[in-house]
């Protein structure tokens, strides 16, 4: 039997969370002969297996049931536990999203194994999955292993790895039947999508990030105009979420959103650790700050030492 790495697909009401695709690509890169298997529990009319197939897992275990349309943590964890007992995967990976981080520990407790939360990296040493996770607010990194019990379980921070499609991928799709979870359980009575994915910074290609050094009403208005011309989203450091213009949904960083755009322009952001951890996956980083010693510069491909308002104004003029 080939041992498998499982990725639990995170199903949102109308899409698969991109972290699922990121995990497939990463798992394939480290698999060393293990099968990469996605477990997808969905309502029969959802057919998310199509989107998942494009990223080239070896197999999709597909459980379809009307109960999965709006399922409680108990139902999701119950089904995953049953499947894990039957198929005995070597490792089980979840996205470190609130939902993944709610369901994973229920499965962990039922299977009496280890679970590492919010990993930033993982790799195999022989059969041992080494899981790298930050602690103390990302000030410390730890390597964690689960030597004696299986499966090895981890949740992985979204946007830590790039997702890559595989041309012509045709994974095996294996239907699975799972008995209805019994026992005390919650009933989901409503689900409302909060972020519009179209404008959300998490999946944006280009992001303009505003910090306290670029927070006047004029800065904000100009940045928004530039962003709309560039097809970019506007993100902010935490202090700006106190302004009526922004909420935590636009916040970049540890207690906000991890972003991975192709282009990031930081305007008047100092570069505190909690901000930096949210942007390390950005490809091209340009930063503007009047303080030549600002920590953000060390994380930047290009730097402009000077006034953010003047830079923004010049950029807006060029765009016209």
């Amino acid at each position, binding site marked *: 039997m080939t041992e498998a790495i499982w990725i639990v697909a995170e199903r*949102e*009401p109308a899409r698969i969370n991109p972290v699922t695709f990121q995990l497939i690509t990463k798992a394939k890169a480290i698999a060393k002969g293990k099968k990469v298997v996605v477990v997808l529990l969905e309502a029969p009319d959802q057919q998310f297996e199509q989107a998942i197939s494009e990223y080239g897992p070896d197999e999709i275990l597909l459980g379809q049931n009307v109960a999965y349309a709006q399922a409680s943590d*108990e139902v999701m*964890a119950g089904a995953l536990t049953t499947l894990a007992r039957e198929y005995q995967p070597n490792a089980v990976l979840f996205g470190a*999203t*609130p939902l993944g*981080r*709610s369901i994973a*520990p*229920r499965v*962990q*407790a039922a299977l*009496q*194994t*280890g*679970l*590492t*939360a*919010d990993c930033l990296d993982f790799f195999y040493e022989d059969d041992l999955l080494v899981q790298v996770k*930050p*602690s*103390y*607010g990302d*000030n*410390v990194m*730890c*390597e*964690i292993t*689960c*030597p*004696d*019990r299986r499966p090895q379980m981890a949740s992985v921070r979204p946007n830590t790895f790039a997702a890559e499609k595989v041309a012509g991928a045709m994974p095996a799709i294996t239907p699975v039947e799972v008995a209805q979870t019994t*026992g*005390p359980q*919650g*009933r*989901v*009575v*409503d*689900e*409302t999508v*909060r972020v519009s994915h179209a404008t959300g910074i998490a999946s944006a290609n*280009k992001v303009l990030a505003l910090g306290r050094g670029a927070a006047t009403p004029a800065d904000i208005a100009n940045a928004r105009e530039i962003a709309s011309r*560039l097809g970019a989203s506007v993100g902010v450091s935490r202090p700006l979420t106190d302004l009526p213009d922004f909420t935590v949904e636009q916040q970049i960083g540890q207690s906000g959103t991890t972003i991975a755009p192709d*282009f990031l322009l930081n305007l008047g952001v100092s570069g505190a650790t909690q901000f930096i951890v949210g942007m*390390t996956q950005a490809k*091209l980083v340009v930063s503007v700050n009047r303080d030549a010693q600002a920590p953000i510069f*060390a*994380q*930047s*491909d*290009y*730097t402009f*030492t*000077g*006034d953010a308002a003047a830079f923004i*104004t*010049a*950029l807006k003029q*060029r765009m016209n």
Partner: protein
Amino acid sequence: MKIVVCIKQVPESNNVKFDPVTHNLMRGGMSGRINPFDKNAIEAALRLRDAVGGEVALLSMGPDSTAEILRDGLAMGADSAYLLSSRAFAGADTLSTGYVLAQAVRQIGNVDLTLLGRQAVDADTGQVGPIMAVNLNQPQATYATQLTANGNQLTVVRDLDSLTQTVELPLPAVITVRAEANTPRYETPLHIQQSFEKQVTIWRDTDLDLDPEKLGQKGSPTVVRKVYAPEAKTRAQTALPSEPAAAVDQLLVIMQQHGLI
């Protein structure tokens, strides 16, 4: 309603340092405080008690010094506290911690609701709540922002970042609370004074019904094999011209070269 709130002692600050010689984590001398999210859990419990009546007990597993954070929670208005302190618990990971706390909830008896913080700010796992729920065979609602009691049922709004979910939970249940749920009240002089008359029960491992195989390091499947400072990666830091107009021109050229415009 009988409510238990699990609270954890965490370091005063996350600014941990490494010993330059041994590369060990230096945490010595740092005093402890209540995990900030656990104060939101206490506040949620007190509001439920005020709404429907009942009692709020605090529960913490940790060294004897943990008694101080239990005192803080009592001074916020909780009614009683339990401290689980034993060498047998040392080295517990989340699986073992969740097990011991669940056994303590059983021993307290007739608990309708167990509340926790969304996560502890030291290791940031958020696993103990769901693990307790499985051990107690109870349903859960994590990341709660609103809790409303109606009879033997609780309606909970969960903020799952991209999604707002409303669940109806039969009691007993386990809930973890987000900071957005409320603003924790301050300790009042009267409550501080009263806190010294409130009961803090100390239980050792032998006071609880526990499987020794599930305790401490032995009961913890995970091993922390290495701890280190994150490597400080830096980028090229090429300076753009110092005149804003010239800088912007060069930026646009760079963006064009990268196929961004």
